[in-house]
């Protein structure tokens, strides 16, 4: 009975891949669970053995992840990947001269495309915080700029943004336009206006901060 159902154990183990556990470990857990299900199976109850074994094996696989604190680690992993994506995005923008695709981000972070999308989705809650943070090499502004762009995409939000932009000095407005409208990198902007990339970075950070304060003030009216 065990030999006949080893294939079932392997198939079920495969369903739990991509959660950070090697397939061999999962197959081992599933195989042990299969043995347990043979011990526990009572033919007198009229339940099909495969159905009983499937339920037992899935239960054991889930317990395996639970015992290893998987839920906490998974949640942390999503947050870490979200942060990692920020760094990878900034690096790839510099390397490629354009925004990276999800596939490129997945390759750069050693994740799947699905995991990248999941992390972006789950990380939306961190957006406001990331805009607040100061600019430095570990927290590239170019990454946060993308977030801001997505953040103000409704008509209402753009209505708030327009007057805030008008309050900025012409040079800062021009830098924002080059970055967001023309899609230039920080280095390209630096070359265009004759300052260092870091200075562009600081100016962008300061402009965003000012925009945020202005918008927060208006939104609270």
């Amino acid at each position: 009975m065990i030999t006949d159902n080893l294939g079932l154990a392997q198939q079920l183990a495969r369903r739990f891949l991509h959660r950070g556990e090697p397939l061999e470990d999962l197959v081992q857990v599933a195989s042990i669970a299969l043995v347990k299900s043979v011990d526990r199976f009572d033919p007198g109850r009229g339940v099909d053995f495969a159905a009983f074994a499937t339920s037992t094996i899935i239960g054991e696989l889930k317990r395996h992840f639970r015992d290893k604190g998987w839920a906490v680690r998974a949640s942390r992993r999503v947050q870490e990947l979200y942060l990692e994506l920020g760094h990878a995005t900034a690096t790839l923008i510099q390397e490629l001269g354009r925004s990276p695709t999800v596939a490129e981000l997945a390759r750069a972070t050693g994740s799947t495309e699905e995991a990248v999308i999941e992390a972006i989705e789950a990380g939306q809650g961190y957006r406001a915080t990331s805009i607040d943070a100061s600019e430095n090499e570990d927290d590239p502004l170019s990454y946060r700029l993308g977030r801001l762009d997505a953040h103000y995409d409704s008509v209402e939000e753009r209505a708030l943004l327009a007057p805030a932009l008008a309050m900025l000095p012409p040079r800062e407005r021009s830098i924002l336009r080059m970055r967001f409208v023309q899609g230039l990198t920080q280095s390209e902007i630096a070359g265009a206006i004759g300052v260092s990339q870091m200075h562009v970075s600081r100016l962008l950070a300061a402009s965003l901060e000012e925009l945020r304060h202005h918008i927060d003030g208006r939104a609270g009216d």
Partner: protein
Amino acid sequence: MIEPDVAGADPLGDGDRIVLTFPARGDLVVLARLVASAISTRVGFDIEELEDLRLAVGELCLLALQGSDAWHGDLRLEFTVSAEALDISCTLGGAAPALGGRGDEGAEADQLSEQILAALVDAHGRVEEDGSVRAWLLKRRKGPLA
């Protein structure tokens, strides 16, 4: 007032319904899983339940696809939120039955999917109605509505 959850998403509530339709291709089942994740988060399922649903929704799509020449069809997933549960229905429309029928292999795959669903969700089923196949599942919430 409904408070946003930790991911900054507005929760879904009793009676909310979301429909996703996509070409019935295996490589697009990822869409079903992603939407299931997003919805699970918004109805307050914990991460384990979310993973159960991701797994289950994949099996649901497989169940609906099995035995059909699905290349010309569409999969339509309907997610319905109630106070007690999340109901997901997957319908394959516009696809002809596969040449040669389902076969033993198809029946075995169906059986495995159904067994997996039985272990992951509270209720599930597969019905053929009006020339199309509909697979469905129901996952109850442990706690009150988010």
